[in-house]
Structures are given as C-alpha cells and as structure tokens.
C-alpha cells in the first residue's frame, strides 16, 4: 500500500508527510532539551559556587567536536541536492565524521573519569554528563539513520531517498544547535 504524500508535497500544506513528521519530532526534542537546559539554569543560579568549564573541561576537544559536527551537517545538507552516488558518498563521510565526534567524546570522557571527574563529584559534572551524554545518544541515533539511508538508497529510489536525506539534514542541524548551546554553556562559561 502506498501512503499518499510520503514523497510529493501535499498541495494544501506545502510539505510532505516526512518533513511534517520531522518538524513535529524536532519540536518534541526542543522541549526535551529545553527541560534539561531549564534544570541546568536552576542548578547553576541556585548554586553558591559554580566551577568554570574552561578550567575543568578540555576546550580543544570541545572545539574539535564543534568543527566535526558543523562539517558533518554541511555534508548532510550537500547530500540533499546531490545525485544518488555522490549523495551516498557525502552521507558516508558525514557518518564517519559523526563517528569521529563520538570517538573524541569517548577519549574526553575517559580522561575526565581518570582524573576523578565523575558525575557524583558535583552538580556541574552531573549536568555536563547528562547533557553531553544525551546529545551523544542523538548522534548515535543519527548515525544509525544515516546508515539506513545509505543502505537503502538504491532500493528506495531517488525520490524517497531525497526525502529521507532532507529529514536527516534537518535532524543534524538540530543536533548542531544543541551542541553549540552545550559548548557555550559548558566549555566556554
């Protein structure tokens, strides 16, 4: 059975079901991260003392990860307009960069834990691990979706794959925005 408007845009709304669904999903994700940032604001303002992330965390790792995410999202956006084979390659590189992001994060976590900087040590580290951990889970989810798109790009056809890539590029842009907020709040302040 073919579901109507899964590829072509609905004439009344101007968007396809896929894009509408992604926007609704992203709205719920904004609320999820919004609640966590709200908790962060409460804990930080209420705390008698708050450590400086610049002194505790590795600014170079955070900067490298920011760059990796931005390039990765740029590739995912370029894949939208590319031909099938080129889109596949771009999406593959994008996935590899997402993997590199996770690799840097794991190295960073290991270094911090080796120094005794565990979540139980203070509220700053508890919020740091919660926010960055949930963000990393989103990167893992995005990588899985990228792999699924790459694997099915020939079977699904150009039109369906283009929809999927458009949805993923929106998702990655959201993941970038969340990371930049985390980077500013945790690493730079």
């Amino acid at each position, binding site marked *: *059975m*073919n579901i*109507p*408007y899964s590829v072509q845009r*609905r*004439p*009344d*709304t*101007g968007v396809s079901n896929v894009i509408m669904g992604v*926007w609704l999903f992203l*709205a719920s994700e*904004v*609320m999820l991260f*919004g*609640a966590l*940032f*709200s*908790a962060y*604001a*409460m*804990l*930080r*303002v*209420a*705390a*008698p003392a708050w450590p400086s992330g610049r002194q505790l965390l590795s600014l170079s790792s955070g900067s490298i990860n920011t760059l990796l995410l931005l390039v990765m999202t740029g590739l995912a956006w370029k894949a939208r307009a590319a031909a099938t084979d080129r889109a596949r390659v771009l999406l593959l590189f994008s996935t590899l960069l997402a993997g590199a992001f996770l690799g840097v994060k794991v190295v960073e976590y290991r270094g911090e834990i080796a120094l005794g900087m565990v979540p139980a040590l203070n509220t700053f580290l508890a919020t740091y691990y919660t926010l960055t951990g949930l963000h990393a889970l989103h990167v893992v989810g995005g990588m899985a979706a990228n792999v699924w798109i790459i694997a099915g790009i020939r079977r699904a056809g150009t039109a369906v794959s283009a929809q999927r890539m458009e949805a993923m590029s929106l998702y990655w842009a959201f993941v970038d925005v969340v990371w930049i907020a985390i980077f500013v709040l945790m690493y730079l302040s």
Partner: protein
Amino acid sequence: MTSRTRGWMRAIATLLGWLAASATAFACPICFQSEPNGATAGVRAAVFVLIGVTVIVLGGFARFAVRFTGRAMGSRLELTYPERGTSIQDATPLRVSPRRDA
C-alpha cells in the same frame, strides 16, 4: 443518582475545596515573593528558560498555522473522497487551484 449528576457533584466539590483552601496553599515562591535566596533565584531562572523554549516551539507552530492560512487564502481546495466501499488508494489526490478572484 445518574453519572451526570455524580459528575456535577464532583465538579462542585472540587470548586468548593479550591475556594476553601487558603491562597498560601497554592503559593509558589516566585509569585509570592518569598525571601530571595539561591533556590528562588534558580527556580526563577529555570522558569524563564522554559518559557523561552515554549515560546520558540509555539512560535514555530504559529508560523506553520499562518503559512497554512496564507496558502488557503490564495488557493481553492478541491476535495474528492473515495466512493463507499473503495479503498483510500482509489481516492483522487487533493488538488489546489488558484482562486478565481485572486
């Protein structure tokens, strides 16, 4: 006693209980301006962040609604439903044509 009467009685009892309770029962430290300390300042910051996030999300929905309204004003929808007994796949897709007076 019918279920409708029971429903009314429950609603009235809730209203009476709400009216009978003193205002302080519903007090939140932000609205009632308790002594400023770290906790109240923290809760205030959290509330402002959540309000900001909610405004962003609702603003996005409002933008969608305005966009749809604009499209509806500029076009005329022709809806066709499937005959009884036929599947949704047999339905003619939605068509939008420009308004005659537009």
